[in-house]
């Protein structure tokens, strides 16, 4: 892949969802790995109850952008972000800042509490990450972090979460088995179930299907479309068909910039920028 400067400077076409729908609203985000800048003034409006897909060639910054949304990059001292990440109208990067023209506030303020933030913005990673405990405990663990529930309630939460992640039928007879004993596809759906069990508002998925076979991918996609009823989903994917199939909005990124952000139907049928047209027609990898 080789983009010259002209193609990178195609300008951008952003058709965002209405302000009052934006549960997350990233504005002018710059991100740095040490001295290396990876994101340049990125905008990302995320509509509540929709699936937003982020696509683009490797290294374009889409995973980096996703990792800013729950501030998981905070684990690494060298990484930092500048700009605004508005979650229910509150700037996660500067909680005390009064934001003009912000989406409506909802729920308790995060106020710099990363644990509270991540309870409300869950994440599923590229590789399945079951914890070293039973299938049941993998789900109960996260719930227990944030709420006190009775054993009966917990049973119900475990069953509901696994059902919604399209995994219940496959594991209902072996809930006490280790989460690591499942296949890769099952492990990934376990991670989805674990993520939704704590009932976050937003679920971030970083190429969740990249390590899965087509059948597992199909099951995961089905689960995600079902989940849209109750959660906002942001998914990074290399699979354009997947993005077109399941997403409502699509953001196309290139070299650390958001080049095109539009409703998925229009974006894939008639890309507005030359760069995205080239990318979706396969001219660039």
């Amino acid at each position, binding site marked *: 892949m080789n983009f010259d400067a002209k193609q990178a400077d195609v300008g951008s076409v952003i058709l965002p969802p209405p302000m009052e729908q934006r549960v997350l609203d990233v504005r002018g985000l710059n991100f740095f790995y040490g001295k290396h800048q990876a994101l340049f003034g990125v905008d990302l409006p995320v509509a509540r109850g929709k699936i937003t897909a982020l696509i683009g060639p490797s290294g374009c910054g889409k995973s980096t952008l996703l990792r800013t949304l*729950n501030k*998981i990059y905070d*684990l690494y*001292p060298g990484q930092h972000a500048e700009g605004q990440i508005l979650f229910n109208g509150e700037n996660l990067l500067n909680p005390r800042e009064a934001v003009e023209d912000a989406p409506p506030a909802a729920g308790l303020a995060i106020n710099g509490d*990363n*644990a*509270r*933030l*991540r*309870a409300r913005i*869950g*994440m599923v*990673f*590229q*590789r399945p*990450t079951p*914890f*070293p*405990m039973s299938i049941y405990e993998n789900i109960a*663990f*996260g719930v227990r*972090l*944030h709420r006190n529930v009775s054993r009966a309630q917990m049973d119900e939460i475990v069953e509901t979460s696994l059902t919604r992640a399209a995994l219940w039928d496959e594991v209902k007879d072996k809930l006490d088995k280790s989460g690591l004993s499942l296949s890769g596809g099952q492990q990934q759906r376990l*991670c989805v179930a*674990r*993520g939704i069990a*704590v009932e976050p508002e937003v679920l971030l998925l970083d190429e969740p299907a990249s390590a899965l076979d087509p059948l597992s991918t199909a099951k995961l996609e089905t689960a995600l479309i079902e989940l849209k009823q109750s959660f906002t989903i942001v998914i990074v994917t290399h699979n354009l068909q997947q993005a077109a199939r399941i997403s409502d909005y699509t953001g196309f990124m290139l070299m650390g910039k958001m080049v095109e952000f539009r409703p998925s139907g229009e974006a894939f049928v008639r890309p507005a920028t030359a760069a995205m047209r080239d990318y979706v027609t396969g001219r660039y990898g």
Partner: protein
Amino acid sequence: MSVETAGPSRAARQDAFFQALCFSAAMVLMATLAGLLIALVIGGWPALAHFGPKFFISAAWDPVAEDYGAAGPIVGTLVTAGLAMVMALPLAVGIAVFLVEFCPSVLAKYVSMAVELLAGIPSIVYGMWGLFVLAPWFALHVQLPLFYVVDPDSFWGHLFEGIPNGANIFTAAMILAIMVLPYIATVLRELLLSVPTHVREAAYGMGCTPYEVVSKIMLPYIRRSAIGAVMLGLGRALGETMAVTFIIGNSHEFPRSLFASGSTIASTIANEFAEASSDLHVSALLALGLVLFVITFAALVGARLLIGREKA
């Protein structure tokens, strides 16, 4: 002379020679181990045959009457090493977790250096420090106060019974704990670093606090290998000689309290080998060596089994 025909055969000869060289290097090691074991068995046999199973359960150790029983040193060895592990493990976990999870990278360099330095100090230095500094301090500030406070007929009174001179099983275990600490801490640190980044991130991504990530995800993740690390430390504590000899009090009495003088297998051998006059005395010491060999070997094999199972 044709290069084409000579080339491959020379390479093959080189290969065979190289293989034989590596093989013999490995065999030298095996032979040494086997030779050591055989020598200990042969040397210790007269004593083992003379006393029979009583050698392991009798606490008599009387060179004048030629009556030898190893129960005192065996129990002394196991108790000091075990106590040392109990003291060292929580500290080692704390050090490792701090270094991996919380320590600013500037400070981490110096703490790691201190840990390595601690591992590099010769054991005789620990021994001298134990005898001249730790023992008097311990006698004055721990044993004496306890002596006045605790009812001598109670359970605690029996546990803390002993001459208040600081040279006892407990202080020996303290010295051992300091000595094995850097080993356990280093291995635990490596193990914590081996927890995959994505598992750690996933735990934080669930909204875990750092304490929850460490205690509920990372430590359970390395649980089994960590037992291996402890066993390696235990192996070292079991065989440590000089430092223990300095401070344990070197009494062959069966240890009846925590603050009683005692002996370990290694300290007994170090103290008596040069002065052993009779054949039976020498044989009894060699038999002690065999027992230590077997105990240490068992600990190391246990460690290897546990670590191996995790990797598989």
